[in-house]
């Protein structure tokens, strides 16, 4: 199995952290994985993005023109990366910060008000974890144990945040079932 993902958003939305967590989940599942951070001058503000590739064999192309999944946490990254989704691929869009607008009919759109959901949970910084939950559901086959392990590893210096993020993750995971 090969899967490529692009996680994008604004500086401060936890793009790199959530990408690192995803990459760790893949690694813990015994997969080959590569994570390339956005390679540009944008140190802060603007669009931040990370490309993650997962495979059963050595990853030969860590950067691709098109990916299977795009997560866009704001309008800028939605606009910038809509054309990076492969045919029949999926884009998950944070509709709290981006207008619902379908310009392509060859891909699947999932619009979810992630920021509002995160605020309901009481922590806006869990927006990215809700997105990860949705993504996990679509990817399938990710063991919740590995998800927990990845959070524990990445947030080992901020233990108090682990529970909240897993809660957010599960909210995302169950989000699509609720008829969205």
């Amino acid at each position, binding site marked *: 199995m090969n899967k490529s993902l692009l996680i994008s958003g604004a500086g401060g939305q936890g793009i790199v952290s959530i990408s690192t967590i995803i990459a760790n989940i893949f690694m813990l599942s015994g997969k080959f994985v590569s994570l390339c951070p956005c*390679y540009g001058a944008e140190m802060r503000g603007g669009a931040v993005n990370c490309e993650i590739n997962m495979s059963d064999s050595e990853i030969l192309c860590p950067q691709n023109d098109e990916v299977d999944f795009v997560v866009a946490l704001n309008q800028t990254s939605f606009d910038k990366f809509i054309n990076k989704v492969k045919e029949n691929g999926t884009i998950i869009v944070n509709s709290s910060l981006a207008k619902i607008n379908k310009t392509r009919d060859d891909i699947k759109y999932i619009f979810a008000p992630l920021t509002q959901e995160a605020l309901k949970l009481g922590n806006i910084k869990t927006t990215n974890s809700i997105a990860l939950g949705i993504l996990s559901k679509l990817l399938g086959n990710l063991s919740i144990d590995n998800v927990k392990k990845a959070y524990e590893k990445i947030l080992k210096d901020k233990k108090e945040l682990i529970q909240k993020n897993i809660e957010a993750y599960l909210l995302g995971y169950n989000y699509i079932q609720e008829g969205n």
Partner: protein
Amino acid sequence: MSEKTLLKGNIAIAQAALKCGCSCYFGYPITPQTEIGEYLSLKMQESGLGYVCAESEIGAINMALGASSTGAKVMASSSSCAVSLMQEALSYACSDELPIVLVNVMRAGPGQGYIYPSQGDYNQSVTGGGNGDYRIIVLSPSNVQECIDLTYRAFYLARKYRNPVIILLDGLLGQMSEAVEFDDNKYDEINCSNWTLEGAKNRPSRKIHSLEPSSNKLNNHIKKMFEKYSIIKEKEADWEEYLTDDANIIVTAFSTMSRQAKALCNYYRRKGLKMGLFRPKTLWPFPQKRLAELSKKADLIIDIEMNMGQMLKDVELSVLGNSKIEFIGKPVGDFMKIDELVSRTDEILRRTDVSLSHS
């Protein structure tokens, strides 16, 4: 074998350096290698090791020169335009026969260029950017695991041959994270006590210098250096081959570009073409003999680089007319994606009619 961890190329190099006993690091910030110095700053200070945020790359590499004269394992790191500033001291270090490990995480040039990944420093590294006759051993990893393995090897070779070693990678690999394991460093410790400076207690004093007013002595010194280089050429050339057994089309590439080149081989194999990859892991010494052998069986060599054709010269010198050579390159901007490689390869195959005779 430790458990797997997800690490950036830059951090992997820093951790590997500490694992093999690097006790001094000197650096100055420049994207895309800054994480090496950032990571080591805390670890080295905590352990009482030698770390200086140098005033410039010139300062940094000369600190490395001084530190290595004491027998300490020394590393410096930088990127492209700033590695240019270090060339003077590298020339001295070769003549002084001092082991320094220098990491160059390449960005695009010439001049300041930009922070895009690039492979534009091949020539500077393998032919030497400083003055005089000298050689630097150049190791080039293609994935994060190899960043670790080749860092171990770099420290070993530097001390074994008393010569600087450059670890040359492109910015993409420096920034990219992959799952890695830290093997134990399997290389022997090299005893340096017969040449280091640490005070002339109970022995005659020693001097390390490149200045030599006697032309006779200077000639002999350079001759001795080159005798050493011929041993290195003989013993240390290292490379990877992928699907080369029956290949009549050989792709040559180094560092991360070789991964895309492998994907290219897979693509054309599915189309029935016998394509294989030859990847030098040592850029100097270049594995010339093996490529020469392979080229005798090949109809076409395609060299792929993120520059305008720098390794190409070494490929040409190895192939020496045994087969046709074509080049695909892009110096600046995006990493060449597989689609672009395929369309440029298709064009070459059409033009050279190699595909027709073998597909």
